[in-house]
């Protein structure tokens, strides 16, 4: 106990389930409730964006981090989800006027949001399965480039089928259904499913495939099935994320689901740590909140009566530089392999700790140790 550094003592505090409950469950939950009560607020807008990025980045982590296939094609699956969900929720008259080439049954269908979401995910997953033969036969960054090709093809299809997608004019007037409860319900479901997936025998198979495909194969892991299925699961949630995106912004077009969007998601995944779902959570928060601090700088900050010149583009430069530095000095991202946040969410101990006297004692002694400085 004597030479326990400050760092270690702080970490000891995080070992207490009760502390985890407060930090990872209670505080975020109360914050979300607050946001839910102020739906028009700017902070709520940021929080919704964070939620959608959590869904996108954590699903990307399933393939990039856990199954070892480095995809950069998430924007393509987002686009599919966004358009499918829009088609299912737009009113019949709008569709008949604007998207006359849609199949009749789709024009006449108006589905509830939940159904549209599931359909959006399913459509993205279906496309993933259809194109999966390309990722089975390629490896390394050849695979990455193949997924970039998918983005280009999807964009071309969207831009050139005017009578279905309105082409580059995009779809607008999509219902604003991505409220805080809706977004974060999807977040929780996504993380729960992904967490259970990576902690299952199936998930261990994925990780073994990532670490040593040859050994995994000799041990009976069906690589092809693993690749296709994990790609499809990931695409499913990317589709969900795309649908949430569409219903958050109410207007979509092919240009919004191009390289930049994919790179943004990859960046979040890398910064947070692509080997951890908790990393996706923190990465999404970090990459959305941090640029907000640079916004006043960009806008010409007032310091002691002087107004600094406007410096638009500064936040992009800082974020890009940060990414390079992080890759060089802390390659695993913020979270590395730790799963502390998501694990706390879905383990019973976090919640039962509230009712255990011993837990309070543990926190007290950890706190005491922290402040006593021993």
């Amino acid at each position, binding site marked *: 106990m004597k030479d326990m550094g400050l760092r270690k003592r702080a970490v000891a505090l995080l070992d207490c389930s009760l502390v985890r409950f407060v930090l990872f469950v209670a505080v975020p939950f109360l914050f979300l409730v607050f946001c839910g009560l102020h739906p028009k607020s700017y902070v709520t807008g940021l929080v919704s964006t964070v939620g959608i990025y959590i869904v996108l980045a954590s699903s990307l982590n399933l393939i990039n981090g856990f199954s070892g296939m480095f995809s950069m094609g998430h924007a393509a699956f987002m686009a599919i989800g966004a358009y499918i969900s829009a088609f299912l929720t737009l009113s019949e008259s709008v569709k008949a006027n604007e998207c006359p080439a849609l199949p009749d049954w789709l024009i006449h269908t108006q589905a509830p949001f939940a159904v549209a979401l599931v359909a959006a995910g399913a459509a993205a997953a279906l496309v993933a399965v259809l194109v999966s033969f390309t990722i089975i036969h390629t490896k390394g960054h050849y695979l990455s480039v193949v997924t970039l090709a998918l983005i280009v093809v999807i964009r071309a299809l969207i831009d050139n089928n005017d009578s279905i997608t309105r082409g580059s004019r995009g779809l607008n007037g999509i219902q604003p259904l991505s409220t805080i409860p809706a977004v974060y319900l999807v977040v929780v479901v996504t993380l729960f499913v992904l967490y259970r997936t990576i902690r299952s025998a199936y998930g261990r198979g994925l990780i073994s495939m990532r670490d040593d495909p040859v050994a995994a194969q000799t041990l009976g892991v069906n690589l092809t099935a693993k690749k296709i299925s994990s790609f499809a699961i990931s695409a499913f949630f990317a589709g969900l994320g795309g649908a949430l995106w569409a219903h958050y912004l109410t207007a979509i077009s092919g240009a919004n689901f191009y390289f*930049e969007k994919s790179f943004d998601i990859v960046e979040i995944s890398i910064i947070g740590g692509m080997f951890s779902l908790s990393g996706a959570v923190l990465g999404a928060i970090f990459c959305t909140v941090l640029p907000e601090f640079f916004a006043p700088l960009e806008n010409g900050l007032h310091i002691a009566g002087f107004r600094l010149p406007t410096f638009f583009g500064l936040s992009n430069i800082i974020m890009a530089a940060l990414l390079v530095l992080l890759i060089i000095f802390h390659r695993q991202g913020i979270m590395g392999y730790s799963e502390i946040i998501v694990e706390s969410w879905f383990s019973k101990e976090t919640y039962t700790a509230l009712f255990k006297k011993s837990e309070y004692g543990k926190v007290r002694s950890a706190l005491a140790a922290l402040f006593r400085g021993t």
Partner: protein
Amino acid sequence: MKKRKATVFLAAVLGVAVAAAGCGSNTGTTTAAPTSAAAQETTAPAASSEPIRIGGIFNVTGDQSSIDAPAQKGFDLAVDLINKAGGINGRLIEATSYDGQTDQAVCANNAKKLIEQDKVIAIGGLSDSDYAYAAGAVAQAAGIPIVFSGATTPDIPDTVGNYAFLTAFGDNTCAYATANFLFKTQGAKTVYVLIDDSMSYTTNLASYFIEHWKELGGEVVLEDHFKSGDYDFSAQIQRYLATGETDAMFISSGPDDASSIIQQFREGGATAPMISGDGWDSDLWGVAGDLANQDIYVGTHYATSDESDVVQNFIKAYNEKYGIDPENAFAALGYDCMMVLKKAIEDCGGDVTSANIRDKIEAIQGLQCVTGTISYSAESHVPAKSVVITKAEDNHLVFVENAASN
């Protein structure tokens, strides 16, 4: 070791996150009251000497920046000039602008930030429908008037709602006017249409043009397509030449491809007059040399050769502030966007509220602006403006005629 390091990182990040959440929730609680007109009315009269807060959203980085950055400059210039002249009804303007980063989500969130954190009572900016819809939906829901500086998609106000206005004419007006000019003034009967498929602006413009051209009784001999950034037009040129040339060529492209299209088509041997919409109103291709002076017409918002005071003063002021001529028409539109807001706020008198500004914008009649005379009505939040047909001469766009759009 790995795990510990990660946890420390985690702790640090949580610190940032909690701090951010803290800041956020502070601003959140202070402005928790919905921005209803009633809430503002109570504060407005008490603070008549306080600055008027106006917001701006422009995509000054990313793909949109070549048109939004000049718009931002024009917008800022207008604010400067208004404040130098003593403000509006004795109150100065405090303008806050955020970069939309050519990202819909950032635009939407910036609109929320302007409304809630910076407490603006009106917003200006944005030149593309995708971003206009995203930010407009926010402003509409909060009851804050939003005047789009450069967007030309005519259905934006209908889609967004009664708080949205355009500064520019709609694409339909521009397309109809250029078609009329070609058909009636130039006497063209056959036309070649080249369309950039990657932008909503260019696809809209082309479809309105083709529709009106056929109404007039003209013939579209060949319709060809490309995608912005395709730097080689040899296939299109050969295909066009195979038609044996048409009376005129309508090129629906943005400013970015103008230079290469003009140069390559002319060098390739295409001699018919070329016409395009306001997307070509930039100084970029003007320096393309003699080739650019051969029968190139642009249907746009204003001509820099216009002798009127309002245009010349704008160009002079822009030069004084930035040391260059306005880069393109969007600079003037950004300026006019602020001028529309100024006029409406002036008309509000002592009752400067968002709802009142909206009503007063709608009531604007015959406002002399750099880009023409702006009038709105309850039926149309797209100003009825005339389209100025200009011709390239000595690297400048010179006024030819005011073309009617019907």
